[in-house]
């Protein structure tokens, strides 16, 4: 366990050192940490504060302000369903209800088997092919119940 901790700290320091020279480096650092670990490890926050010479409270404030950053790992897959107006006009709410039933989770939750995390998203810019979704970074347009069922089965494999 101690070894794993040290490993996280070392990898985090590597990322912080690489990016701290940028103008306004905090968001790029948090993004890179999340890319590396799948979430932003708590032990990285004081390291960032130290490297950027800002308070830990400030780092915590930024980390918790933005919807994207996670403090724990997501499921193996992340399914984001758009809940914004253009998708609403094409029945996104009913689809979201179906998705929650199919997966047995509510927004922001991960299925018990760790297969998938369900997240709301407010606009993917695919408003002319609504309803839309994003599965592990892949965009999906004209979502319907059949596609949703396929996705639900696929993520559980």
């Amino acid at each position, binding site marked *: 366990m101690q070894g794993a901790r040290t490993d996280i700290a070392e990898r985090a320091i590597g990322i912080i050192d690489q990016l701290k020279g940028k*103008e*306004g*480096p*905090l*968001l*790029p650092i*948090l*993004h890179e940490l999340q890319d590396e670990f799948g979430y932003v490890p708590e032990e990285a926050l004081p390291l960032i504060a130290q490297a*950027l010479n800002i308070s830990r409270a*400030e780092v915590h*404030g*930024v980390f918790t*302000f*933005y*919807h*994207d*950053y996670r403090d724990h790992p997501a499921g193996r897959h992340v399914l984001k369903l758009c809940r*914004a*107006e*253009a*998708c*609403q*006009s*094409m029945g996104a709410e009913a689809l979201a209800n179906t998705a929650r039933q199919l997966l047995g989770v509510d927004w922001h939750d991960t299925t018990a088997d760790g297969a998938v995390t369900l997240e709301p*998203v*407010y*606009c*993917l*810019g*695919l*408003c*002319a*092919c*609504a309803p*839309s979704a*994003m599965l592990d*970074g*892949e*965009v*999906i*347009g*004209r979502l319907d119940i059949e596609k949703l069922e396929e996705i639900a089965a696929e993520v559980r494999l």
Partner: protein
Amino acid sequence: MTVTIYVPRDSGALAVGAEKVAKQLQAEIDGRNLDVKIVRNGSRGLYWLEPMVEVETPNGRVAYGPVKATDVPALLDNGMADGRVHPLWLGLTDQLPFLARQTRLTFARCGITDPVSLDDYRAHDGLKGLEHALRLSPAEIVAQVTESGLRGRGGAGFPTGIKWKTVLDTAGTQKYIVCNADEGDSGTFADRMIMEGDPFVLIEGMVIAGIAVGATRGYIYTRSEYPHAIAIMNEAIEVARRGGVLGPSVLGSSHAFDLEVRVGAGAYVCGEETALLESLEGRRGIVRAKPPLPAHKGLFGKPTVINNVISLASVPIILDRGAAFYKDFGMGRSRGTITLQIAGNVKYGGLFETAFGLSLGEIVEDIGGGTRSGRPVKAVQVGGPLGAYFPRELFDTPFDYEAFAARDGLIGHAGLVVFDDSVDMLKQARFAMEFCAIESCGKCTPCRIGSTRGVEVVDRISANIEPEKQIEVLTDLCNTMKFGSLCALGGFTPYPVMSALTHFPEDFRPAPVAAAAE
């Protein structure tokens, strides 16, 4: 002779299977040993036809769509490489009515060129605006932009030239050009399309802005929800650096300019310019009080031009063809073209660039073809989640900044979301308040608290608890938010709420009939 086939790499096309089509096509080309080259272009903006595949023929480009990967073998058997007729054949792309009716100035190249080929960009009049700008003085460039009548396409409609002049006239050792590509409004995708379909036009616009005001660094702040736009933009910036468009000597001149893409982290409020600057600096996206204006004290306290993608992407053609050319389009104080984004429950959804002045009805019924569901249109939300809902009775409103304002609406980033008659406007009003509550930065009370109270009041109306009284409270609350909020998030949330209440009062007074029918 090598035949060129175009398969879009635009997110909207990828979302409906363009990648599979491109892979299948490549496999068939290899298998059949055809002399065909695939170019991954941007989207032409006819999303109901995506994935739309185009073939270069001696008569012009011929389109097929919507193409599925399984259609590819039959299309090739049928002579797609020669542009032959097939059930998916659409004819010459330029003659498709949706495209033929447009005036494409900002989107002139989008979907036509290879987005990351600088040679292609040059071959289609790219860099002419920048080359012209390099022969002018900074004040002359700013004068051209002012003279063109270009106003901020992000939504506020502030004259771009005046913003630039303020930055030009402000002394500073370091100045910045910041592109607001935080396109979070539902129903809008023009920024994404430009970044994915013609990224060089945005780069060129930013370089011109830099030369005009004396800035050497630029940032494009975009959304994490746009992974493809980020990737293509980064690729294009690399190409522009190698091609000498960016770097210590822009096109061999004495001007230096370089830029970088920065990615947001899912906060809608960062589309507000001062919150965006805070976020770029590495802080919470909390709105700043103005003054000072970003033009005086912007990014890192330095004089900063902050413009929307479409504003900046419209600059090259103004510098190339002249202010008078651009100004000639439009009506009243809304000059040039507007990039309408027709979305939601609509038959022909997509990007439609045209001079200002079309009526809302023409756009929705005539160009958009009415609803996709085939039911009657009930409401159109114009300008994103902070825009008003327009009923059919106001379909004569011309698309123009002032005309929309006169009817208690706004054109915003020019996104239109069409709803059919199954929509419940009380629910839409509730969503507007809920969205504001989720996305409020928390700095000012009317927005932070007002939005939560707003949801509660709408819920009481829907539960039929003293509805008349609640409607009065809601109206009063909207008034407080509108005039008491620091930025457009709290200040404009009343637009969708009040327009729903004003134009669709029946949805706010639960019919006793419905209760009896239970």
